[in-house]
């Protein structure tokens, strides 16, 4: 007996050692690269430079944000355009997800799905380059419009809000199509047939059967797309030029160009707060848990 209990205690001790060895990388990663950096960022945002190398705690950075109209206007604008972009992405992606799961069959469906995913393996920089060549004044589309006689002179199609939205929707489609497809896949076709047999029209079926069933996928897609859009830098910057006024650009300017880290950190927290707030709201409205949504997307 003593031998066995000694053996189990050795094994328990071994297990504990392995547990500690496995915990170490996880803790190191999360503490050194996520938790502590954000604590440092919070401390930065809550202080003010009063003289060279002398700082004092203050809310001045957040005060500047509200006092300077440009700052909060860009913030509101970024949030509003991100919401519009998310809604547009849902509208564009839903019919495709529907065709993939319910209309096309077998190989055609699988092929369409794969074809939809492929562009998103290409770097965002390359995709932005494509839109630049297509839309700028000397680009393909303005030249085509002139050739068709629709406009007399080549039009500048870049630097509009619509351009930014197009680019953002394009970049985000994948993150909407995938969760939509996986939630629509689990919708039993016989439910739709039943609704049809009972005399429901397309719209009633969509509202009463399809959307309630796909709600988790819709939420997951919208949350991910919104977050990525809000935090995007490349697409608004390249397609919007000076007119883009995206909030991440303000953060970049404060941090890298002006070297005003305190202000940049405050902006970072405002963006993080907005992103987290909208995600929480989306989860609350749809009654889902964060962990489940992240697993699904």
């Amino acid at each position: 007996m003593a031998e066995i209990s000694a053996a189990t205690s050795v094994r328990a001790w071994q297990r504990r050692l392995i547990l500690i060895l496995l915990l170490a990388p996880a803790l190191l990663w999360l503490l050194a690269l996520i938790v502590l950096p954000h604590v440092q960022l919070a401390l930065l945002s809550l202080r003010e430079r009063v003289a060279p190398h002398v700082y004092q705690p203050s809310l001045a950075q957040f005060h500047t944000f509200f006092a300077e109209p440009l700052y909060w206007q860009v913030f509101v604008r970024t949030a509003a355009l991100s919401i519009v972009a998310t809604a547009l992405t849902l509208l564009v992606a839903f019919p495709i997800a529907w065709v993939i799961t319910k209309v096309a069959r077998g190989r055609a469906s699988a092929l369409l799905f794969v074809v939809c995913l492929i562009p998103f393996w290409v770097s965002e920089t390359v995709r932005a380059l494509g839109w630049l060549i297509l839309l700028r004044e000397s680009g393909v589309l303005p030249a085509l419009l002139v050739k068709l006689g629709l406009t007399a002179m080549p039009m500048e199609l870049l630097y509009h809000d619509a351009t930014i939205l197009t680019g953002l929707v394009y970049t985000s489609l994948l993150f909407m199509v995938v969760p939509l497809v996986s939630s629509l896949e689990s919708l039993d076709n016989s439910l739709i047939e039943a609704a049809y047999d009972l005399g429901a029209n397309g719209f009633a079926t969509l509202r009463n059967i399809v959307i309630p069933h796909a709600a988790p996928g819709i939420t997951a897609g919208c949350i991910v797309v919104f977050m990525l859009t809000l935090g995007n830098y490349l697409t608004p910057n390249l397609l919007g030029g000076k007119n883009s006024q995206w909030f991440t650009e303000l953060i970049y300017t404060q941090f890298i160009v002006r070297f005003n880290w305190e202000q940049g950190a405050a902006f970072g927290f405002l963006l993080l707060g907005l992103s987290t707030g909208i995600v929480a709201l989306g989860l609350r409205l749809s009654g889902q848990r964060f962990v489940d949504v992240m697993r699904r997307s």
Partner: protein
Amino acid sequence: MIASLPRPAWLRTATVLYVAAFLMFLFVPLVIVGVFAFNDASYPAPPWRGFTLDWFTGSAATGRVGLFHDTELLGSIGTSVIVAVWVTILSVTVGTANAFLMERYRFPGKQVLSVLMLTPLVIPGVILGISVLSFSSRVAELADDLFGLDLDFLRPGLPLVVLGQFSYIATIATLMISARLKRFDQTLEEAALNLGASHVAVLRTITLPYLRPALIGSGAIALLMSFENFNTTLMLVGSDAPLTIMMYGRMREGASPVLNAVSLFLMLASGGLALTLMRGGSRAEPAKSAAAQ
């Protein structure tokens, strides 16, 4: 409506048109990038002036520096590869440890840890970048003040880029490897142990071979995401620019078709990787997390 129900002719036509328009929307920008890599003009814009390979093979002698002679661009590809390899090694190693930790062990605070592991995915990349930047410079400052150490690697540069990218790619590797480990039938391990195998032997001959597809899949995703990362890298980059940053800088100056040439290579490489992975794995799994942030 669904395929098993009668669909009016207009709806069928509308469906086909919509799918066609959607595919055009997806692929026209990419095709345009590829086509203008071969245009015989010094600017990637219409009209078409004939076919040329100058933007690949040209050198200073011919007046057009093509991709194969553009040392700056080739250097940035090299930089990206080095960063991506480090990020991949770190992410897959830590991801594997995390998968075993979360699937096999119970310990106090596990719930908190599992939520914390997902948070990097909901933090915008720009903010990951600035938080790592400000923390590392604080640590460097402290090391200098307290010990007189000059920790150069904590200043903006490639080591920080690797750490910044790893900070969220590790989450993706963790999720992918955990998902496979969860489906593992643990009686296989018990059987091997009963038959006298050591724990190390079981890990080496049974568990790790089972995890192989997830390890390869997450490695490929990590490689790709690191290669394509822009937001986090932008905040942490020093003097050696990886490819995405280099391309961005040149696009702002006014792109030359060399960028189309390098883009064409990127498309072929990532397209090839995508098809290999999708053929190998389940169809949604590797693709869904691609290109995030």
